[in-house]
């Protein structure tokens, strides 16, 4: 976990043009990701959390190369993959795989499970057909599916089992990094932990690095070494997961934690509700200054004008806030 970074994002920006349907002219920009920098050591897990529209899924797509950043660079194992092309880029693609949220939508219903898991091997021409079949059997066994699963279709499996199929497919190319976008959000709580425990086992066995994207802080807590919190395209807090959970520093992080309904009636009834007012602003026209100021209970004039930089609040713990909930590390105070 203290190793060299396998993945590094440097000031990543991703903007999507909005084109008018009539004149095909660009009429605006969605600022999906606005200057995000992150570093993930090999073998560790980064949890990336935030609500709908915060840009977390876009970051995931950029990391695996499904999209190219508008600006900034993505370093994988020290090499800038955002500028590579051709064969080298394809080869590095194998090392970065994606697991999707919806196990019902991400598996082709007309393909047998064995073919679904074999497909990445076939596309990359890895081994003979016979070797590929053997590999498929090993992968299915590894994710805890019965040997006869290969001959069956996705609809014959439950949500949890389908997510296992998705993991087997992602593992087929023996990747070094897996980006899992809401891997358990579609699953029932009693099944969730089965999949999270499996992901943890696979990480240890294959020395995998994970980026786990979720809106659910409780899920991410169980898997993350590092935690990044995003709001409207910005990283507002990042750090060692233990430190961020113990001492949430950005008011948005604290609000995300406080608003999770607790399965504890006395505490849940006693807790204040509605601390975060209002609505998420539009990503086409994000607010000036701190993007969270329109909903923040601590916002003051400076927040509406000056964008707060990420400041250190401990070793490997940064937050971007003018009025943080913790004291910043000595000598770096800006507010």
């Amino acid at each position, binding site marked *: 976990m203290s190793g060299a970074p396998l993945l590094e994002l440097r000031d990543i920006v991703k903007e999507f043009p909005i084109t008018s349907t009539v004149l095909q002219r660009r009429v605006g920009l969605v600022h999906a990701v606005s200057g995000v920098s992150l570093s993930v050591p090999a073998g560790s897990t980064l949890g990336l959390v935030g*609500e*709908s529209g915060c840009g977390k899924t876009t970051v995931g797509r950029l990391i695996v190369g499904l999209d190219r950043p508008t600006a900034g660079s993505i370093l994988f194992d020290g090499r800038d993959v955002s500028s590579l092309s051709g064969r080298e880029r394809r080869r590095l693609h194998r090392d970065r795989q994606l697991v999707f949220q919806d196990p019902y939508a991400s598996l082709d219903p007309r393909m047998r499970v064995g073919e679904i898991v074999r497909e990445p091997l076939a596309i990359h021409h890895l081994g003979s057909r016979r070797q590929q079949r053997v590999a498929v059997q090993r992968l299915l066994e590894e994710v805890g599916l019965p040997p006869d699963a290969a001959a069956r279709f996705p609809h014959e499996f*439950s*949500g*949890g089992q389908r997510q296992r199929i998705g993991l087997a497919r992602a593992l087929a190319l023996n990747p070094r990094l897996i980006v899992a976008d809401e891997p358990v959000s579609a699953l*029932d*709580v*009693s*099944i*969730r*932990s*089965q999949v*999270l*425990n499996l992901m943890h086992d696979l990480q240890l066995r294959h020395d995998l690095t994970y980026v786990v994207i979720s*809106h659910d*802080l*409780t*899920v991410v*807590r*169980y*898997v*993350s070494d590092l935690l990044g919190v995003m709001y409207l395209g910005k990283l507002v807090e990042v750090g060692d*997961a*233990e430190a961020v*959970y113990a001492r949430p520093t950005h008011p948005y992080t604290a*609000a*995300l*934690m406080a*608003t*999770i*309904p*607790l*399965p*504890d*009636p*006395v505490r*849940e*009834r006693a*807790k204040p*509700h*509605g*601390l*975060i*007012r209002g*609505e*998420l602003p539009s990503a086409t026209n994000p607010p000036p200054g701190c993007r969270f100021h329109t*909903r923040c209970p601590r916002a003051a004039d400076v927040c509406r004008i000056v964008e707060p930089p990420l400041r250190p609040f401990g070793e490997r713990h940064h937050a971007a806030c003018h009025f943080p909930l913790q004291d910043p590390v000595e000598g770096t105070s800006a507010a």
Partner: protein
Amino acid sequence: MSRSDGSVLTVASLRVVIALRHSTVRAVDDVSFTIAPGETVGLVGESGCGKTTIGLALLRLLPAGGRIVSGSVRLGGHELTTLDDEQMRAVRGDRIGIVFQDPLTSLNPTMTIGSQVGEPLRIHRGATARTARDRAAELLELVGLPSPSRQLDRYPHQLSGGMRQRVSLAAALACDPALLIADEPTTALDVTTQDQILELFSRLKREIGMAVLLITHDMGVVAGQADRVLVMYAGKLVEVGATDQVFYRTRHRYTQALLESIPTLTSSRAEALHSIPGQPPDLAHPPPGCRFAPRCAFMTDECRAAQPAMSGSQAHTFACIHPAEARA
């Protein structure tokens, strides 16, 4: 008016089956419960346990192939299962208000907010367009929509998810229903928006004192909202009681396992994450004994032999042969 025990809703021995192409699913199997005036009852369980089917059966909106086989549903003393379609239409939206998970699909995209919220008043109360519109503005204010009178002429797609859920709640409350059925009302929302809607539910409960059947998979939502909890597993109620009883003096092994599998912010990463092995049974062919037995760590031969009956006190019942110790 027939005899009533003072409950808003009394469901007795309700059985619902859904006929599929090759099999018949016993979606709701001998379910009984009541809801008192002003009471919020949480119906919790995982996907496919039948909780949504109960809601749809109460409304007589079961999907094709679904039907109530036996049992009784009485709203304020009136039996609903024997009403014809027209009589039932007069109940829905008037005596029973409904809020679904996804307001984008439950609201009509071609109708303005104002006419949608006022529609129940025009249909059930014969209100004029003018009266319905004025009342719609009041209802939108009640549910906390900012500048309500300016929202009347807007369309659902122009609102955020949280605002849309406020609009569907306003429409559900239009005729001052005896019972509100809310099926996963916050599941499609972000946590900060969910928090706002839950706050709204708490406020409406204080201000209007409506009876609510809150159907959800989220034990945290139930913990904060419900006075009583019904825990459902594989078509049957397995534990019923006051919220604090069910959470703090859990008796049924399924409820216990479910609560243990919920990750929280305070539990450490080092702790192993509890999960329930296996998955729920196929309700076309449910196991003969306790339906949770195949996944239960406390299962014995007795559990597989016959379905356990409900036992316990009036305030807290459970159907388990090897219940967790009742803590003092």
